[in-house]
């Protein structure tokens, strides 16, 4: 078990290093830090001096190490567009993205799993077909289209909910939350649904197909052959065996919600990291791009690791190392 944990952590570290390499390459070689910092009139000598000062003529390895060192200390340089430290920009917008992502993830799980279970157990009922249709629409509609349609319906036509922004936020230490105000909550609804719909559809379909597979297994057949009541067969056995692989995939999907937030934030002008990243891509603002990359990679790798450990905790076949007798 310990070997398993160590192996996974080494793997995670490896991924981070590769990503850091890519981020560094972007940072150093794709953009030109010096040209971005100075005006047109600056002479070539002054540029060369600046290069020397910034350590841009040092060996690449040294620069890479320095890059990682800075990153670990949250120093990602300054944005080309805003001329501010990247870390400040990101920290400012981090709570917005995280709140949106977590709320959407919770929504997709709370509704997706029961819908999937129902659709697997009652395959022919009209409600199941209805759920399946919703799920199909959910994975076919691009996130931005869902957002636009929701805005058009609820914000423009009916005027029930806001169509952009976060509403009023309350500052709790370094975190700003929209969950404590009425307007903040109202502002979360449409973006939350938009971001969560795709994931909900995915989870619903996954749970349904996993459960159908499980219901076909020999141990379920044996459980029925033992005359166990349906309740125990479905919710005691089938559900647990279904949720174990679903849980891992759902966990990984949660990571991708953070990425999809880019789209939702664009549609709703939600002041989060995703919108920041998008503007950076559009304007070739390399420092923000590479910092976002590192941060998001870190979050994903952590989620992956946690999910793997959770899986090992739940599935005894991985956990216990005893020899069969």
């Amino acid at each position, binding site marked *: 078990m310990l070997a398993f944990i160590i192996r996974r952590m080494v*793997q995670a570290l*490896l*991924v981070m290093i*590769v*990503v850091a390499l890519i981020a560094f390459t*972007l940072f150093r070689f*794709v*953009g030109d830090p010096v040209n971005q910092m100075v005006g047109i009139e600056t002479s070539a000598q002054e540029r060369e001096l600046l290069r020397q000062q910034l350590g841009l003529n040092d060996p690449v390895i040294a620069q890479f190490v320095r890059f990682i060192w800075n990153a670990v200390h949250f120093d990602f340089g300054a944005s080309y567009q805003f001329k501010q430290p990247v870390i400040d920009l990101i920290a400012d917008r981090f709570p917005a993205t995280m709140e949106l992502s977590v709320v959407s993830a919770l929504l997709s799980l709370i509704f997706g799993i029961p819908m999937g279970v129902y659709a697997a157990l009652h395959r022919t009922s009209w409600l199941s077909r209805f759920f399946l249709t919703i799920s*199909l*629409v959910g*994975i*076919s*509609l*691009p*996130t*931005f*289209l869902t957002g*636009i*349609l929701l*805005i*058009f319906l609820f914000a*423009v036509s009916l005027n029930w909910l806001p169509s952009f922004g976060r509403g009023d936020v309350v500052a709790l230490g370094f975190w700003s939350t929209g969950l404590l105000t009425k307007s903040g909550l109202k502002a979360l609804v449409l973006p939350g649904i938009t971001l969560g719909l795709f994931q909900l559809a995915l989870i619903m379909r996954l749970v349904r197909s996993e459960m159908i597979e499980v219901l*076909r297994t020999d141990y379920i057949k044996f459980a029925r052959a033992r005359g166990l009541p349906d309740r125990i067969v479905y919710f005691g056995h089938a559900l647990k065996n279904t949720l174990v692989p679903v849980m891992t995939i759902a966990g990984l999907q949660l*990571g*991708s919600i953070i*990425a*999809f937030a*880019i*789209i939702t934030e*664009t*549609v709703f002008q939600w002041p989060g990291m995703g919108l920041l*990243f*998008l503007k*950076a*891509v*559009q304007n*070739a603002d*390399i420092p923000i*791009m590479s910092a976002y*990359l590192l941060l*998001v*990679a870190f979050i*994903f*790798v952590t989620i*992956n690791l946690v999910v793997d450990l959770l899986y090992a905790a739940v599935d005894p076949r991985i956990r216990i190392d005893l020899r069969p007798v």
Partner: protein
Amino acid sequence: MSAGQGASPSLTPRLRWLSRLLDSDIAYSFWQSKLTVLAAVVALVIALGALLAPWIAPQNPFDLKTISLLNSHVPPAWQKGGDLQFLLGTDDQGRDVLSTILYGSRLSLAIGIMSVAFAAVLGIALGLIAGYVGGSVDALIMRAADVQLTFPAILIALLIDGTAHALFGQYRDESATIWVLVLSIGLSFWVQYARTVRGLTFVERNKDYVLAARLIGIRPGLILVRHILPNVIGPVLVIVTINLALAIILEATLSFLGVGLSPTQPSLGTMIRIGNNFLFAGEWWIAIFPGVTLAALALSVNLLGDWLRDALNPKLR
């Protein structure tokens, strides 16, 4: 199952094969599901429209000479102020929405299909090599796959797109945009193919007929293509059915975000982006019609994919 009993012996072999196909279980399940038939019809209509756009579109929205600002903001033909010449209305540049949808679908479908093809070819090739050669080559490819799998496709596509933009920003012309898009989307999706193919190659490699071929001295490349590849096509097809809709949606998303196709050569996503600005002004047709088309396209591709997967799955028969 004695199918094709209605075919008389006088029919040519080809027709008999066709009648056998039509009578087969796959065809049966197709007709049985009305939804699948509907999906196929919708997909076919859009595909045909896209294919025949240059001939059937009332206007060529890319030809600047045919567009006039005087025609801008015209609502759909059945609304007040509408014009039969512009059935679905026009956008802010005076382009006919119907024509733009036809040409835009063309781009969306083309990019979607090309990127899936690219991802498939790359993934299959890498998977075959990894599975057949094994060892450090395999480890390298799989590590790369693992790293990439940590990230969602959209992030990878955005990154490649953004980097290309930064590197070649000043050289970008319209056709380059398409290739950059195909590259970014394709590169986001190769991993699934590679992994599946690698697993299958492992299994096939150890089978007797492959060992026999190697003993005879047949070149590995030939073994891969002639023997292992056909066994791998089935599962790959399943992945393609899921992938195609995702690729189309990804391209639309990238265009909507402004890092895809530009307004001078718009895909459906770009059009929605443009139309979004006028939604609040009440000019809904610029965004909604392309939106409906995109949704219908993705939906029908998904339905067809679902049906194909169920039909090919031996466990469900």
